[in-house]
């Protein structure tokens, strides 16, 4: 176990060096986070590993190199000539100062693998930067436009040629995969990325890119990914993306054993809890996260969602304040503020901040959805539909947006039209009682009047433990409407039990009691009826009177015994 950990530590340290000297900052950041996330039982201080020159680290660790690491790295470094080293340094510095085009130009003569990668990557980023600018020029910050990265084609040609000749190292293969992905060649991209992560598993960016390309969990075996602990991270993350939250949670628990102090694992675990609607656990984890890393912004939008749901005004405002101080121009920050304003019912302002978040990241899914919610609140249904639609076009698996679309059309009194959207939502979350309840309500709508279908929906909701208890009550009432009294009584009883457990109170309880009292009386279950009536006596005037009336009736029946089944039996005996 300790040896295993030592090896991970060594691998990560080396990877951080290699990744950061190639400008793969996000991947390096992630790796460093995991490095400090390893348990600090023994092992030297981590700072040395990061800053050490790559050649040294590589040499140190090469002896323990796992089989997964292919020889390409060592080969590359040996062929690197001294003169190129200087140009590479210039290139890297220019890259770091975000002068990508210049960096690419400075590196134009480089032939080493690292130089090639850095040049191509700089070219790619320069194209991306230009693309972003052009989009704003052409279509405005939120518009859709056809602008593409103009450098993709030449990059694809260059990298593709070398790829076919087998001359690409793992990093360039990753870049090739990214380019292919953007060129909508998904199958090839998947293949290239799989090769890249198999050759060099420590590049988390490559895994993330691959995750975006994995549309189904079933596709996984076709990728032929070699076993590595990095793959476990990938699997866990993919499970979360595919809404297989239980599975993902388990995998993260396993990872937490190996990386007990990894903030990333904690954040992902919290997200899984959030997806499972276990808000308390998630909140606790987020609080823990913020304690250990107070200036973190990643993933905090989810925390703000939790605070929103729990209506923690002050905590949410505190979080927003902190986020603003940390980094005002992060989409997450804008989203947190938007959530806060939404909670304060200042919907115009919330929309403003969600829009700002979208300006910073046009494909920020949850901001589109949340903006849709705000528009619904503002009764601006066309805008809401548009926002939700943008969300589902970015990710067709966003069940919240489908649900939102359904709700919006329901508000517009088009229940039949809304059904389509609810159907999509239930397809994505077949185990979510809320979706089924929404669909049931749609069927129940007086315009449609499809009570049978509604009953089926509510039954599904009940079978998935509808915590809000809407389904049971609705079921009972529907059966009552259809005059199926036995079923109605069954569900009223169940609902009553549930409400007693939750110690809930309200109209539902009264309604259930009134129905059950009358039902039991008619069925001759006088004792039970009496119990219900007694309970009813605790409530307000009209029901109280009704209960009294029923009680009187029961008394008279008991006294005269006409309806009593007991008496019936006696009358038949000779």
């Amino acid at each position, binding site marked *: 176990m300790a040896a295993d950990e030592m090896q991970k530590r060594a691998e990560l340290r080396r990877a951080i060096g290699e990744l950061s000297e190639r400008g793969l900052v996000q991947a390096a950041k992630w790796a460093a986070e995991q490095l400090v996330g390893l348990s600090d039982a023994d092992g030297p201080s981590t700072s040395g590993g990061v800053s050490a020159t790559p050649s040294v680290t590589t040499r140190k660790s090469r002896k323990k190199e796992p089989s997964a690491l292919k020889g390409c790295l060592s080969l590359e470094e040996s062929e690197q000539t001294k003169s190129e080293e200087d140009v590479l340094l210039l290139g890297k510095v220019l890259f770091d100062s975000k002068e990508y*085009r210049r960096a690419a*130009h400075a590196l134009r003569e480089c032939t080493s693998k690292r130089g090639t990668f850095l040049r191509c990557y700089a070219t790619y980023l320069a194209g991306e930067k230009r693309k972003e*600018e*052009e989009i704003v*020029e*052409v*279509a405005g910050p*939120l*518009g*859709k*436009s*056809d602008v*593409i990265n*103009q*450098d*993709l*084609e*030449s990059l694809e040609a260059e990298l593709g040629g070398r790829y076919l000749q087998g001359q690409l190292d793992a990093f360039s293969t990753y870049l090739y995969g990214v380019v292919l992905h953007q060129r909508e060649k998904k199958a090839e991209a998947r293949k290239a990325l799989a090769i890249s992560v198999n050759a060099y598993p420590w590049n988390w960016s490559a895994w993330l890119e691959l995750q975006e390309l994995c549309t189904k969990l079933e596709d996984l075996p076709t990728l032929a990914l070699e076993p590595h602990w990095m793959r476990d991270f990938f699997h866990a993350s993919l499970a979360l993306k595919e809404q297989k939250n239980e599975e993902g949670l388990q995998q993260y628990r396993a990872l937490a054993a190996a990386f007990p102090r990894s903030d990333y694992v904690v954040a992902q675990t919290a997200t899984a809890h959030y997806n499972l609607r276990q808000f308390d656990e998630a909140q606790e984890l987020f609080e823990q996260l913020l304690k250990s890393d107070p200036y973190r912004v990643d993933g905090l939008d989810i925390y703000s969602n939790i605070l929103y749901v729990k209506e923690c005004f002050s905590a949410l405002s505190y979080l927003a304040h902190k986020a603003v101080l940390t980094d005002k121009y992060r989409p997450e920050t804008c989203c947190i503020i938007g959530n806060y304003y939404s909670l304060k019912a200042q919907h115009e302002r919330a929309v403003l901040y969600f829009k700002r978040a979208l300006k910073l990241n046009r494909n920020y899914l949850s901001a589109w959805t949340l903006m849709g919610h705000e528009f619904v609140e503002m009764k601006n249904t*066309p*805008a809401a*539909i*548009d926002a*939700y*639609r943008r969300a589902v*076009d970015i990710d067709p698996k966003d069940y919240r947006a489908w649900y939102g*679309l359904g709700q919006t059309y329901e508000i*517009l*009194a*088009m*229940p*039949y*039209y809304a059904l*389509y*959207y609810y159907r999509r939502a239930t397809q994505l979350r077949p185990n979510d009682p809320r979706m089924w309840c929404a669909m049931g309500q749609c069927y129940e709508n007086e*315009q*449609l009047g499809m009570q049978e279908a509604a009953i089926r929906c509510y039954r599904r909701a009940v079978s998935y433990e509808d915590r809000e208890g809407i389904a049971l009550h609705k079921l009972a009432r529907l059966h009552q409407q259809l005059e199926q009294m036995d079923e109605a009584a069954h569900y009223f009883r169940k609902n009553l039990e549930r409400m007693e457990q939750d110690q809930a109170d309200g109209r539902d309880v009264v309604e259930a009691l009134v129905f059950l009292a009358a039902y039991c009386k008619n069925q001759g279950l006088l004792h039970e009826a009496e119990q219900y009536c007694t309970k009813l006596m605790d409530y307000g005037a009209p029901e109280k009177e009704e209960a009294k009336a029923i009680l009187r009736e029961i008394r008279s029946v008991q006294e005269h015994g006409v309806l009593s089944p007991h008496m019936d039996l006696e009358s038949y005996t000779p």
Partner: protein
Amino acid sequence: MAQQVTPYQVALCILTDAYVKPDPEQNLPLGQDLCLFLVREALSSASFQEPPLPLLLQRLHAAVPAEDALPLQDYLVSRLALATCPDDLFQFFVKIRELLSTSGPPGEVLDEEAILLQPGSALGIFVRRVLLAFNSLSFEATCRLLTNISAYCRYSGSPTADSLAPANAQPEPAMASAPESDDEYPEDEDEFEEAQRSGRPPLRDAGFRRAFGKRVRSLRTAGTAVRPSKQVEAFLQEQADAIEREVGCGSVAAMDAQLSELERLAPGFPKVQYVRYLAHMHAGDVPAATDALHRYFDYGTGQDGSALTAEGGAKGQTGRFQNALLNLGSMHVHFGHAAEATQALNAAVRVAQQSSDDVCLAHALASLCHLLAEAPSPGTAPGAPAAGGDQRGPAEAHRQQLLLLLRTCFRRAHELRLPHLVAFSRLALARFDMQHVRLLPTGLPSLPAAGPLGTDPVEVCRLLRSSSLLLLDAIGSSPALPSAAPSGVRGSLSLAASASGLGDSLSRAPSQLAASFSVGADGLGSGPGKKPSMAAAAVARMAGTAHLLKATAWDLYASAPLAHASTLVHAACYDDVASADDLCLAACQLASQAAAARGPTGGLRVLAAATARPKLAAAAGQAVNRRLRIAALRLQHDQALHRGDLRAAEEAVAELAALACGPGAEAELCVDAGLRHAAVLVAGQRFEEAAAAGAAVHSLAVAAGLQLDAVRALLLLAKVHLAAGAPAAGLPYALSGLTLARAFHLDLHAARATLTLAELALLRGPAHAHSAIRQIQRVLPVVLAHGSLELRADTHFALARAWLAALKPQQGKQSPAVVLEPLQAAFEAYRDLEAKPVCRKVLLLTALYLNTLGWTKQRDQVAQLCRTFMENHHQNL
């Protein structure tokens, strides 16, 4: 999306400039061809993409005389390449602006020869639009235009001889006559690759490239900018139209790829989703169609609001939702989901009522009519118990409801001045009148008193006539409807019963209507290229359908030449606007007309020829194929029956029944298959089974309200008894058939009934021969003028037999012609029908008669002929 200027537009401006203000130094050849070329290019909507430079040059080459092309191309390319910095562009557009100042610089005397670019002309508007767009460009956008121009040039080079080789190789007239057809998308690509492969000379923008670094634009984006939105809209409209007609729209995958490309290049066209929805719907892909439909209407308004195409901008906001429901409803109607369609249409009606959207209500009504007309009426499902002779069963209620709805729809459409809906409801009413017998005004639906059955023949005629007149109105810009329909033609057209084969001819209409409602209301005839809008196209299509309905009506009323003429009018005039269904129906009608005139073999030949036509072959969908197959099977069945090949006939009937009697199939087809089955049984001498089958078909036809088929069934039953040799039992059937046929003005069927009566009379003995002759002679005019070959043959044969029975031997010798001439005519007709067994019978009879006359020489000849027929027959077997 911001208005963009594209290199292609700049290129056209350069040519316009050269044309309007010729530079004396350049001495370019500038003819009218160039101007025509420019106008055509500026208005083209054949593709959503602008052509890349090589293609543009090629088209230019094709448009102007060969010797002029080269200097023009050279000039264009060199001028394009001149733009090396943003200021060049500014200078250029200043020059372009001067083109528009009509008066010219003050003080200068206008040259008589000078060409003026009218600001209101097509080209003037084009130039002005480009100018406006350029003036509103930001500096960055101007830089982008410069980059695009250089990329545009990059794949062309100068038009040297080798680059023009493909253009020269192509026959010139074809290029000139159909300049639009060669810029379809796939060919664009080919051209492109062609241009690339042929190794173009180096570019002339080296300076520019040095300044901006080596940035290779992708092949796709270079020069393939999207045309202005009006033209793209027109392109999409054409695609939608093609899909609606199901003719020449290619495969769904190809269409989808093209649409995705457009979506990628220009995300601002939600109508792409609409076209995709149509494509998926007609391909029968329910989930994909639903998906596209919902996406289209979700994007219908909102922030990008360019998609408001419903009636007027203000209405668009609210109109969107009922239109969405309306379209959803018509989609379910298309797929035959009756319950879903009703739900959606009801919701549409509710929303439309709330926003008092009368137009939408009228369309919803039309869709409901369509749903009712297509839904199998209750009690006619195969296997359902027959409703008996009661006219007021559920089927009748269904029909009455349909009629009521249709009338309301017609009235509303007329009030709201919606020409396509008026045309639709008129046609549907006419069709209804032709299909169903209803009570004449004395017996209103609410009153149980049974008035005489019948229809108002003038009504059918009027409805059909005015439908084609609508066409003129819809294409012209005036939305007004024609005033009173002309009611000049009275009495000639009559009534009704099932119009076989008409089942689907109207089925497309409501979806077209919904489409034209939500999409096509952007002004009649105002689109680029002056294409009639979708509503007008729908009306034109329905005008064509009216001719087909007319043909069926003439057919029923027994006027073969007029029926033929109507079908031919459709084939000749509406070929390019007709939907696949109509094309198919026209082919079937032509085939059956040919079969009536020249026998089933001729019909089959016509059908094969029609099917092989590229138009119909391109349209081949499942429904079309089924219809064509049914028509072919009917003809084959007739052929086999005539030839006496019972096994082939049985096979044909079995396949026919399998095709026609599936669940949800039209009752007409099923009844027809049943009748044909019974006919085979009669030919196989299985009389009891035949009688049972005939009775079953009759009750089915009555239950479904198919009066024509009921008459046919009665006649068949009479024929069964005739063939079984039981004249007394057959008589009531023949008589009631005759009564009904006369009441419904079905002259040919009345003739057939009379003929059967005569044959029954003959069977009862020579004493009745004279009355038989009288009966036959009474129907002879109709039969000889309009009857089919078979009917003519039967009549002649029956007449000859009647005379033989009536004449005493010595009388026969005096006038042998009365017998011999009909026999000769019958023989010839049967020979054309390839009915060899009957031919033998006729020849035998002739020989016997000649024998009694004592004309031995002729007798031997006929006997010899008879023998050859027998031998042939045996060989065939």
